[in-house]
């Protein structure tokens, strides 16, 4: 079992490595993609600088906390889109019968399918996240916590996309649901927690768990709270398990296809 996990991990890393090599074939595009993503993210901070010049506290957040929030949102997005880019195209993979080549390999189908390519610009998001951490206040403790939440958040974002995409095994055109779900997760991730009230507040801690990916980590990094920390861990494990469960349940309904497909 341990050996199997080790081998699976090795293949996943190798897959990511080869996908990265592919992206690096054109150096100029590779570097500009990363730099422009950092600049793109930085441009959003300008509006917050303007807002905080008028008010010290918005929705219970200081300017520094907003920076940290943006940092976590960017790094979790970057982590997930870099390592698991194909989780965001999984519904297309399922609908067009592109799982065949992974199904004949003695490895985990889901992991093989979602680690088959990387998104270059996500490296920019990832780096941007850590730049924000440095501005917020670097310490070993903050660095470890930030990295931990990046990984947990990345896994949650990926799991959500996998769960929604797996609906393709049952319904056609579920890609619309996937796109909506994924964009809700990002668009609800970068505002101070305090501005959300009522139903939206409940939603961001349950069905659209942007709160667990972004707001709880900011709270823990501002003032450590073991209970909240455990909630993040339990939620991450539950969602990952659910993603595997639903995907494998759906896989039994997989119908393949005879489309001409190339791994490019």
């Amino acid at each position, binding site marked *: 079992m341990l050996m199997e996990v080790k081998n699976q991990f090795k293949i996943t890393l190798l897959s990511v490595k080869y996908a990265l090599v592919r992206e690096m074939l054109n150096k100029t595009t590779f570097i500009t993609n990363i730099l422009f993503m950092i600049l793109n993210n930085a441009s959003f901070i300008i509006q917050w600088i303007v807002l905080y010049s008028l008010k010290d506290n918005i929705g219970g957040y200081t300017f520094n906390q907003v920076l940290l929030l943006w940092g976590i949102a960017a790094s979790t997005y970057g982590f997930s889109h870099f390592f698991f880019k194909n989780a965001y195209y999984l519904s297309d993979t399922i609908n067009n019968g592109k799982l*065949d080549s992974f199904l004949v390999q003695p490895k985990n189908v889901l992991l093989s399918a979602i680690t088959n390519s990387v998104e270059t610009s996500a490296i920019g998001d990832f780096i941007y996240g850590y730049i924000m951490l440095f501005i917020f206040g670097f310490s070993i403790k903050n660095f470890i916590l930030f990295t931990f939440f990046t990984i947990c958040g990345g896994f949650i974002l990926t799991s959500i996309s996998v769960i929604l995409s797996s609906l393709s095994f049952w319904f056609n055109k579920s890609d619309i649901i996937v796109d909506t779900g994924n964009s809700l997760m990002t668009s609800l991730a970068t505002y101070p927690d305090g501005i959300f009230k009522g139903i939206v507040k409940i939603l961001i801690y349950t069905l659209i768990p942007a709160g667990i990916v972004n707001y709880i980590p900011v709270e823990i990094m501002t003032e450590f709270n073991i209970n909240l920390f455990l909630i993040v861990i339990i939620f991450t494990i539950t969602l990952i398990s659910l993603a595997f469960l639903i995907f494998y349940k759906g896989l039994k309904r997989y119908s393949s296809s005879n489309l001409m497909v190339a791994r490019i």
Partner: protein
Amino acid sequence: MSIIKVEKLSKTFKVKLKEKGLKGSLKSIFKPRYKTINAVKNISFEVEKGEIIAFIGPNGAGKSTTIKMLTGILYPNSGNIKVLDIDPKTERKKLAYQIGTVFGQKEQLWTHLTPYDNFKFFGAIYDIPESRVEKKIEEFKELFELEEFINTPVRNLSLGQRIRCEIVASLIHEPKVLFLDEPTIGLDPVVKENIRTLIKIMNKEYKTTIFLTSHDIGDIEKLCKRVIIINNGKIVLDDSMENLKYHYLNKKIVEAKMKEKVNLDDEDGITILKDKGYNLKIEVDITKKSVSDAIKLLNPDNIIDINISNTPLEDIISNIYKEEKK
């Protein structure tokens, strides 16, 4: 010993029906209608160790669906499959270590990597120690003549070279059974011949059992000793190539260049295929008339040149397909 054992295998697909136009689309939202397609209907067969078997049929006959069930890609609706005593439905990973698959229409290799790197990647997928993979690559490089392009990125290879690499990649883990789904699709005759030689070598050197689907009669004729024909999801013929030819080759084609014109219009057992005056092409049904009788009718003294041949295998097979349709 049976390597592949299939019993009463069936697979159905549910397809949503939609009437034409926007109205039809709206209707299908509120009142969806489905049609069940029986892609594979209750088929049974066995394949022995070391066999090269042709699994053929017209488009949409159920070939790919069957091959996909045998390799664990699709779940059957009913029936039993054992490949090397492993059930693809429940032990997909275990089976994957033992079988190789090449889908001519689908590419498994990373196109930006060289065949060498791809082979190493496949070695890692099958948990083969690096030293053994290196040894295997060396062996294949010589055996399958890959030297020339083993370090060229796959995207720069010709289709033939690419397919050759696809097949070699599927052999890295020394599979006991190799499933080839139209491996020669889109290849020129020389490359097709190369691929066939490669398949023969695999079967001879490594005793690999080969399960082949192809529309290319040349593949079937030159490689396989046994043929299974599937049509409309059912097996319509499971026989040796020899028997197939023997039973279906009861017609001979006689082409003759004549000194004088001959009239064979009302002869029983003879069908005139082409009559251009002095050049005649006839089909002789040897159950009704022997070839020698047919030649006698032409009058041997009257013949300048003659050619007697079998009905091409391609025609035999398309006739079987057509008979099923009726």
